[in-house]
């Protein structure tokens, strides 16, 4: 067996070990790569900065724990930003698994900024129906969600005083890992009701939302862990995303090395064995 053939049949366990090291070592000993803030993240940050204190922001947690390393830091950074600006958060989820994640992030930020449940933030919970839930919320929030995620009547919560529909909401942000998610909020929230919509999405789905950004249907967007890290930088702090960027950088670099390495030997092998073309 030639070296080319041997390399083509490389034991995958070796690749697994190298990836493990590429992720673990930078987490244990951070390198400290500089993170530049991209325009879509800056725009989302500025959209929140431009709101008056007391404004209500919907944060829809349309993701689950599988995408938590990417999206949960966004959720935390947004909750912190909103509370630091005295904005009120109306949390909800088009995914049932997103509701506890949204609650945890809001609780953590609320503790840091001295905010209380029912006054400064609320979690309306999950409702099945995807785009129709968005449509229903746009028309009548208390009718769609008569109770919060834990079964408390929303009419008893001060944050919901005078809140009827989208007219009482200044900004909508969907933290989405798929459907239903950003697309539904853009279609109904922005397209039909003209509301300002922002997004936080996984890196793999971010390319699909660039048309919405360019068309102005999304005011800003965080894409993947890098987007979350950029937002953390704007918040003048570091969080799990910023700390994870070194590991992601090295892992990306290693995968690129694998691709180039394998292709080099593939091309060499093709020259030596043209019948394999």
């Amino acid at each position, binding site marked *: 067996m030639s070296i080319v053939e041997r390399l083509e049949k490389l034991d995958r366990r070796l*690749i697994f070990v190298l990836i493990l090291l590429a992720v673990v070592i930078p987490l244990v000993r951070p390198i400290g790569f500089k993170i530049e803030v991209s325009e879509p993240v800056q725009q989302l940050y500025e959209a929140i900065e431009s709101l008056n204190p007391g404004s209500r922001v919907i944060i829809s947690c349309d993701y689950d724990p599988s995408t938590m390393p990417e999206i949960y830091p966004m959720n935390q950074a947004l909750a912190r930003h909103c509370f630091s600006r005295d904005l009120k958060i109306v949390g909800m989820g088009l995914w049932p698994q997103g509701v506890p994640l949204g609650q945890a992030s809001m609780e953590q930020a609320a503790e840091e900024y001295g905010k209380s449940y029912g006054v400064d933030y609320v979690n309306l919970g999950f409702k099945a129906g995807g785009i*129709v839930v968005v*449509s229903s919320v746009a028309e009548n929030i208390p009718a769609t969600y008569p109770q919060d995620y834990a079964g408390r009547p929303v009419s008893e919560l001060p944050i919901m005083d005078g809140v009827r529909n989208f007219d009482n909401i200044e900004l909508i942000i969907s933290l989405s890992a798929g459907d239903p998610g950003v697309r539904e909020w853009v279609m109904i929230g922005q397209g039909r009701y003209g509301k300002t919509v922002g997004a936080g999405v996984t890196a793999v789905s971010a390319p699909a939302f*660039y048309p919405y950004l360019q068309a102005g249907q999304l005011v800003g967007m965080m894409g993947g862990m890098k987007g979350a890290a950029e937002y953390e930088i704007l918040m003048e702090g570091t969080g799990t995303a910023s700390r994870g960027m070194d590991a992601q950088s090295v892992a990306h670099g*290693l995968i*690129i090395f694998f*691709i180039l390495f*394998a*292709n080099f030997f593939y091309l060499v092998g093709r020259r030596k064995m043209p019948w394999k073309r």
Partner: protein
Amino acid sequence: MKKQIPLLITFVAGMVMLVQYFIPHRPFSEVYRLFNQWYLVVAVFAMILGIGNLIKIHSVRLRRRGSGWQYSIVLLCSLGVMGVAGLGWGIERGGFFDYLYWNMYYPLSSTMFALLAFFVASASYRAFRARTAEATLLLASAILVMLGRVPLGNYLWDRLPLLGDWIMSYPNMAGQRAIMIGIALGVVSTSLRIILGIERTYLAGR
């Protein structure tokens, strides 16, 4: 009648929803709200139906000792325990359901997704080959975007993120737009076929 009534319901509901978008006034706006409420109720029943179906399929597999029947035990037990925990003690923070969510569901779900990194690395080594000109182009763009999206790219060459952004903002966006327009046209034509009763496969092929 078994065919005509569902077709009539579909036609009326479809036409009303279509018209209300262009005439958002009474009586269409009221009907729109009513239909939205009905949909939410139907969605909940669909969920119950889904759970029922899941229980049925896995119970049958378990009874017949079908392939992977051991996993059916895990599924049914997990479904039962989470259901009882949520319905019995509520889903508030600090409760039993919340405990199970953070200590069982969350680590299992994260682990499954984290394994992707290993498989992506292995697959990239084995399958991502510059076999044709198109594959080479894809490979080059993938490498540039991958590097441009992490701080390592900026460290290697400060213009690399700009190059990655350019790929995302122009070639990627043009492709995404084409896909979106194609999907939208497909959705419009399929919806019209369903509303007008031409497409009837949703009636179980009858």
